[in-house]
């Protein structure tokens, strides 16, 4: 009997181990396919608005014309979480080509291997990434030297302002510094009882695109030190940023009143958007908002401008926060060469990038497209092209350790005003001019 037990125990352990290990390795794909053979690719993306879906479908049509052997089955409105879970679950319904609206997860995609390294594909097809893409965009699509994504249009954030409200309040131009922002916002604010008729600017972070990193970019912060460790606690800009935000909140009536007013706003992407309905006279948003305001036929005149900068850095006016959509190939794809053809077309074909950028008013993500004369000449859109190319514009560094683009591009820690280093002044992972 004891012998039986000793035989059973390893058997049970082995079975349990196999069962546990069985869940641990989802299927992996291969890059042995012939991209000239007929194939259907599954492409998951995040676009959901009608005009955006039409634009990406038009892009796919153009691709299929160029590659008649490749059919693309697109699925829109896919979140990063859904995609991440699908890539881990594997199976034949998982996507071949994937895209994400944010650069925040690129580190995870590259380090986990869920998105494959694109360098071998670029080498194979002779695409020189450094010649095609601006450095900032290449930086935020790679992790520790592994280029698992490529930029598929970019985003720049700036100020939208209601010109009618400005005229009514006797204000001639949009504010350029943080103190001007406070004065202008107060002047534009109209109270109604204990609430507001119109608010100059909503400084609370719980609103649409108002996340801290986007406004913080105006201070050009350094997120990581040379060793890749977080250094925000030691960053003087962090204190300045929170102080400016607190002062703005106080000047506009306090957090409670603002938060209560915020609950009267409609959905960001609806006709009840607070800027569109006139509840906000100024609003921070991405370059795509202009097209939406035009489509919604806003009943006031509006303009765009860069976001404000700290008073002691007035010479950096024109800078802004940069991010972008990224595209890559799923590790589980069995058609990775064909998938690369689609990724290459969407990200590196100049005419395609310009056409797509014009269609959805996003910032083009290749050097050639940025210089293209075919780009939309709308001045409200051009403001964002200027922000994207401003030398002090800042992208969020990848949440990596040594992957921080700050630490890589750092040269000498020469000090500048209030002890801030030259690198933070110039932005350690900045604009598309590089």
């Amino acid at each position, binding site marked *: 009997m004891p012998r039986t037990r000793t035989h059973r125990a390893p058997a049970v352990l082995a079975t349990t181990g196999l069962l*546990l290990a069985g869940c641990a390795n*989802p299927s992996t794909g291969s890059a042995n396919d012939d991209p000239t053979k007929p194939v259907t690719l599954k492409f998951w993306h995040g676009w959901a608005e009608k005009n955006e879906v039409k634009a990406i479908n038009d892009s796919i049509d153009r691709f299929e014309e160029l590659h008649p052997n490749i059919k693309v089955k697109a699925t829109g409105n896919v*979140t990063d979480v859904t995609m991440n879970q699908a890539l*881990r679950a594997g199976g034949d319904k998982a996507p071949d080509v994937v895209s994400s609206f944010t650069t925040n997860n690129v580190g995870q995609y590259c380090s986990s291997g869920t998105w494959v390294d694109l360098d071998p594909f670029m080498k194979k097809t002779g695409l020189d990434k450094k010649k095609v893409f601006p450095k900032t965009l290449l930086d935020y699509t790679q992790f520790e030297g592994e280029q698992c994504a490529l930029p598929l249009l970019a985003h720049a954030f700036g100020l939208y302002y209601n010109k009618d409200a400005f005229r009514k309040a006797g204000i001639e131009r949009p504010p350029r510094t943080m103190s001007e922002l406070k004065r202008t916002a107060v002047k534009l604010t109209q109270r109604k009882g204990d609430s507001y008729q119109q608010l100059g600017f909503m400084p609370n972070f719980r609103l649409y695109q108002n996340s801290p990193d986007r406004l913080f970019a105006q201070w050009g912060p350094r997120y990581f030190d040379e060793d890749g460790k977080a250094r925000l606690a030691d960053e003087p800009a962090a204190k300045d940023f929170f102080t400016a935000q607190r002062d703005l909140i106080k000047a506009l009536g306090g957090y409670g009143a603002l938060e209560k007013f915020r609950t009267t706003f409609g959905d960001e992407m609806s006709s009840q958007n607070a800027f569109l309905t006139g509840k906000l006279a100024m609003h921070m948003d991405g370059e795509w908002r202009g097209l939406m305001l035009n489509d919604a036929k806003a009943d006031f005149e509006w303009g765009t401008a860069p976001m404000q900068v700290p008073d002691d850095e007035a010479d950096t006016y024109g800078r802004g926060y940069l991010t972008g959509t990224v595209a890559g190939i799923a590790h589980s794809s069995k058609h990775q060469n064909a998938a690369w053809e689609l990724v290459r077309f969407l990200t590196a074909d100049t005419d395609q990038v310009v056409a797509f950028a014009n269609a959805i008013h996003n910032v083009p993500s290749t050097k050639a497209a940025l210089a293209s004369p075919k780009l939309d000449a709308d001045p409200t859109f051009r403001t964002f092209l200027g922000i994207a190319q401003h030398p002090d514009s800042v992208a969020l560094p990848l949440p990596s350790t040594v992957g921080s683009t700050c630490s890589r591009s750092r040269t000498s820690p020469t000090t500048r005003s209030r002890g801030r280093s030259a690198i933070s002044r110039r932005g350690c992972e900045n604009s598309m001019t590089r």
Partner: protein
Amino acid sequence: MARTRKAVETVPSGGSDNAAALRRKHQRDRLRTLDFLSPWLIGFTVFFGYPLIATVYFSFMHYNQIEPATFVGWRNWKYVFEQMPLFGPALWNTLWLVVVMVALRVVFGIGIGLLITKLKTGVGFFRTAFYLPYLAPPVAATVAFVFLLNPGTGPVNEVLGAVGIEAPNWFNDPNWAKPSLVMLSLWGIGDLMVIFMAALLDVPKEQYEAAELDGAGSFAKFRYITWPSILPIVMFAVVTGTVQTMQYYTQALVAGKLASGVSVGPGTTIQPEYPDHSTLTVPQLVYSLGFQNFNTGAACVLSLVLFAIAMAVTTLLMRKRAGLLTAED
């Protein structure tokens, strides 16, 4: 077993046949019992035993659900207990909800049950009216509540304001977010109302009549007749309520997300904590860690913490000394 075998060997040959037959019969009986038990055994093994073992196993592994798991010892446990800033608020919120929500739901369920059993007319109407909210899907019910209690545009605050009462910001106020969730759960009290009504109607009428003859008042009748009779049902409600509330997820997530006003679309990740961590529960952290950040090890640690607490509370309540079990139970 060896002793039995020896005993069987010493029995004369005729007796040996009988013993063998008896042994075969016992074996058949055991197999039959196993056959009848097998659906439960399979279910228990597949849906409880294996997941529990896997959870313990992965709590000691680094596993991002794509690369092979690697052993990391107690690192996940240390991370959760020593370095994870949201663990404390999430655990506090979960325990707060278990204590307050479960207690109030039981009290409210008994109250509504008593009220309806005492009604002479309109019983059907009130029974339906109190039960219907329970049938509303949790997401829809939460969306409706957040809309009704919206501080800026909600009808509740407008009505309260009209009569001169300064209403709170409900789901937008860290001090009121959890009480608002409790209100939502009390609105959907239908499930408990039904079982308490059944328990109350099951109390023998003769006992009340005898008590009345002895001059017992309403409170004495409830204290000495109703309460002991419905105690097993109260225990059932408390135990299942505790286990359910330990897993509280949907309503807290939806309420926090809607009240925060942050658009959730491609490229954004829900941060389940608005306002000021007050609606963050442990199950939300488990999902966030396990299926948004793919930190499976830490998610497993949190799941085991939840399991241990639920197990401890249930064991405590199931003890006869807790007073919730009667002699018959």
